[in-house]
């Protein structure tokens, strides 16, 4: 697979404020993401994960180093619209991203700006709304929708541009469990069915556990980068960085510490159930 995102030697500092020194937020990031990957970026507040995300579609430009997305250098101002069509971004707060008073007009907003012909626009808007399961709401006012529904409208607005990559910056942070489930299911479907590359920034470990790959940021550098199973098996390291591991992983780790023969790399409920059953089966065998 082709690399869709290539980040090399990326450093970034926000400009110095009067009286304050410029703080370096990103300290040398090297990261490549292949087309079609589903990557979670974890990190505590201030770790630089949002700053990193904003480099992918040129909201921020590197102080040093290079970011290339879909073959376009983000510093190339002449190709910035092309770049943003290739990599779309969804933000945390659903209320800050909706511009129109009718759902379908909101989804069409970017296409109108790009001068897409009407017939084509109609088709793309309908397809995008169907893809996020919001087609029945196309004539509604966004103000009547739940947070999860609004976030799906924001995602539809991006999908309508037919991007190769979507970056989502904590898209579920302001949603309730139902809304979170809807949005996660939508993102997963975009990835599986349309092959869109997903970069998901999140605080939720259960969401990260559903991804192909987890990148953990700490103090402006990449601390861990592997499959969720491998990353979460470093329980102590992950906790040291100020993050959680899934509860089932934590339980397995605690039991291992107490001397139980239980795998280190449990990340799903099913695996945990099976491992505990096995422990008890062994226990019975011994006591007999």
């Amino acid at each position, binding site marked *: 697979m082709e690399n869709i995102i290539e980040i090399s030697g990326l450093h970034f500092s926000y400009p110095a404020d009067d009286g304050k020194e410029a703080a370096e937020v990103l300290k040398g990031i090297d990261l490549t993401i292949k087309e079609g990957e589903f990557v979670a970026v974890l990190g505590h*507040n201030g770790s630089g994960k949002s700053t990193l995300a904003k480099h992918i579609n040129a909201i921020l430009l590197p102080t040093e180093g290079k970011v290339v997305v879909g073959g376009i250098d983000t510093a190339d101002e002449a190709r910035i619209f092309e770049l943003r069509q290739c990599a779309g971004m969804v933000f945390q707060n659903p209320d800050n991203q909706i511009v129109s008073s009718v759902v379908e007009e909101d989804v069409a907003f970017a296409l109108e700006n790009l001068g897409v012909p009407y017939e084509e626009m109609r088709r793309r808007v309908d397809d995008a709304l169907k893809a996020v399961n919001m087609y029945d709401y196309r004539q509604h006012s966004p103000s009547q929708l*739940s947070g999860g529904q609004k976030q799906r409208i924001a995602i539809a607005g991006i999908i309508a541009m037919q991007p190769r990559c979507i970056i989502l910056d904590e898209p579920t942070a302001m949603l309730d*469990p139902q809304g979170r489930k809807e949005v996660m299911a939508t993102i997963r479907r975009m990835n599986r069915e349309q092959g869109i590359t997903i970069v998901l920034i999140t605080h939720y470990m*259960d969401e990260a556990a559903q991804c192909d790959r987890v990148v953990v940021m700490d103090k402006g550098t990449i601390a861990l980068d592997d499959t969720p199973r491998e990353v979460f098996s470093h329980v102590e390291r992950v906790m040291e960085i*100020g993050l959680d591991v899934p509860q089932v992983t934590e*339980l397995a780790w605690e*039991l291992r510490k107490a*001397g139980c023969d239980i795998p280190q790399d449990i990340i799903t*409920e099913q695996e945990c159930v099976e491992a*505990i059953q096995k422990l008890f089966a062994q226990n019975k065998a011994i006591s007999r």
Partner: protein
Amino acid sequence: MAILETQQLTYTYSIGSPFEKTAVDHVDLKIEEGEMVGVMGHTGSGKSTLIQHFNGLLRPTSGKVLLDGQDIWADKKKIRDVRFQVGLVFQYPEYQIFEETVFKDIAFGPRNMGLDEKEIKRRVLETAHDIGLKEELLKRSPFELSGGQKRRVAIAGVMAMEPKVLILDEPTAGLDPAGRDKILAHIKAYHERRKNTILIVSHSMEDIAGFADKILVMNKAKLFCYDDTEKVFGRAEEISEIGLDVPQITKVFVELKKQGLDFGKEVYTVPYARDLLLKHLHGKAGDGQC
């Protein structure tokens, strides 16, 4: 005696319009003094409407709200006092900060209560300490602080009124795990010291499991249950069915029970799960080793 009580509390929005909707439907509830209560319910369940009745932001369509045994609407002029006694911290309270310094922002509530300067200062210093804000921050502009610090300033502003009942609507929304743990730990310490009544609205049952003595669950405008934490987790499957998130660890134990491994206890935290499993693996002696 119950500090907060509702009797057949009902609230209907937009009566007589096509949007008429009963958001709270005949709710009877008694919250005892000193309890730490987790409040759950999905969006639209009526939990926000319910808590807005506790300090008189909304007036019941029918039914009553009693604070210390007194109907809070018995004398309309006294509703202001109710708001000093029941402090409500909204979601994302950091957006409501407006003063020039952290000190002034925390002092805003106490000053409105008509307290003297000495008492105001005592309360500001004490609550800042309670919520983990260093004294040197008090002179700073709240807008220079980090998101988590700003949120703690906003919470301190309500705590400084020393309400008998403190209600926090999703105090950890949008925070990272470390920020979340910090705020919850400060609220817990404050509760242990002051022994006042605290209600925390949260979507995360994993968080609630860590602090609540009791859990209140709203569903479709009705009170689904109000009971001890352990008993509520005993109804994990029903709670899942009404669209709420049950802790992952609870789901594991529900599944184990279905498969025939029944420990006879409700499990909702990891340390408890570990101890329980080790005890059973090792017979009654349980030396904490496998």
